[in-house]
């Protein structure tokens, strides 16, 4: 038991999780913004924007996240000298956030679109019948209902994003999966307890998010 507790004294486990939380937080904000813009493009009447939105989603949804993150550090930083911060670690962190945001924006876009799909046809027709044009109809009638319908799929994206923040390992960010590897390598006597510490850490983060979004999606659901 003593050697188990000494793990926490030797290694900064909460600090590593804090990096994952930071990655998740910033990537969630950026991917939501980007995803919302893409969703708007895909449901707009303008063909070129629809095409762009669809192309973005199909490209990034089908690329492994590992490839995107590795591209960020090997390609953008290593080859093209893209520098997002003077500080070495902060630069890698921001590149990883960028990769996570680009990847998850495709899924946010699809989540919002699936929310739009939950709005019955009659709602749009009723909006048009009372003389609302596209933007007022979208703003007053469609989106308030669509966003409520999108809570559950958006929650799924957030959960996946939390777990996927470990892939930042491929972008040389020192986060929990990185620390776990280091700890197992140095403390071979405690392989399973070390894994369980990190696994339970993610369970503790992910399960409440899942419960919260399920509760929210039920509470906010438009009863039909």
């Amino acid at each position, binding site marked *: 038991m003593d050697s188990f507790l000494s793990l926490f004294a030797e290694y900064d486990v909460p600090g590593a999780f804090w990096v994952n939380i930071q990655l998740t937080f910033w990537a969630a904000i950026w991917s939501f913004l980007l995803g919302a813009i893409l969703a708007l493009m895909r*449901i707009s*009447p*303008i*063909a*070129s*924007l629809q*095409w*762009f939105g669809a192309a973005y989603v*199909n*490209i990034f*949804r*089908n690329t*492994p*996240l*590992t*490839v*995107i993150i*590795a*591209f960020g550090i*090997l*390609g953008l930083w290593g*080859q*093209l000298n893209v520098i997002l911060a003077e500080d070495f670690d902060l630069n890698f962190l921001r590149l990883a956030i960028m990769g996570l945001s680009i990847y998850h924006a495709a*899924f946010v876009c*699809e989540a919002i*679109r699936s929310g*739009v799909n939950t709005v*019955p*046809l009659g*709602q*749009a027709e009723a909006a048009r019948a009372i003389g609302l*044009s*596209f933007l007022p109809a*979208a703003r007053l009638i469609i989106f308030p209902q669509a966003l409520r319908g999108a809570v*559950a*799929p958006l929650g*799924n994206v957030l959960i*996946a994003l939390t*777990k*996927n923040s*470990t*892939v930042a*390992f*491929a972008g040389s960010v020192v986060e929990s*999966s990185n620390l*776990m*590897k280091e700890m*197992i*390598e140095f403390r071979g006597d405690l*392989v*399973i307890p070390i*894994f369980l510490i*990190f*696994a339970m850490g*993610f*369970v503790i983060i992910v*399960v409440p998010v*899942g419960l919260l979004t399920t509760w929210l999606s*039920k509470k906010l*659901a438009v009863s039909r």
Partner: protein
Amino acid sequence: MSAQQVLFDAPGPRAKRRILVGNIVGVLFVLGLIAWVIFALAGQGQLDAAKWTPFLEARTWQFFILPGLLSTLQAAAVAVVTSIVFGLIFGVGRLSHVLPIRWLAGVIVEFLRAVPVLLMMIFLWLALARIEAVEDPIFAAVVIALTLYNGSVIAELVRSGVHGLPKGQREAGMAIGMTRGQSLRSIEIPQALVAMLPAMVSQFVVILKDSALGYIIGYAELLQFSRRLGVGEGNLLQALLIAAVIFILINFALSSLANRLSGYLSFRTARKPKKDNTKKVVAMDATNTLS
């Protein structure tokens, strides 16, 4: 609202003009973005012929890209089979009417779904290497980690597929004297498997994408080989792009297959989603390839 075109009225002359203007602006925006990327790349000398010609040589494909692709497909193919087996066992476990089995299967599935695949992969790799139980701990770690996660997702698909069936199916089975286990095996699960087929093909996309995580633990798959090629030839950016394009093409083909299947099968499984069924609908969504 499946036809999203109903968001707007049939456009009149003014709206048509506005859409045209919007289209021109949109095209300019997209072209501008492409031009910016091309200029940025050309400015850094990344579009030089020397960086791209290696991909026209047979040995690049023979010694780097094809071996990498082969190991990626190998890991994914084995993981697909083992995930289905795992998913069926635990899916049936979650439907069992024996409480402890249902409970145990539920806890295991929920735990595996909440833990990042990479974490399991690193743990399995180091643990297997330590106890020297298998010949190739890296390959085993990639396959087992993919199986544990994706098998759990498939278990959920089996469960939601069975729950989505009309109640009459089970009642009919009971009425002709079957036990619950018999009706599950010979009536409900076969139908659930058909209904979940598109979502399962989508899960194969997830398996293929997640096999790239093996790169992090040193599994010599497509991304790893592309990196070696890029470091050797001095065209890292191009090598990574080619790897990404290969992944995108395969995954796009699989996703299209899933969509086709879901359209083709919809007449067999056509039913109105029950109220308060949002979670199940999300789980069975064939376009959802988020890991």
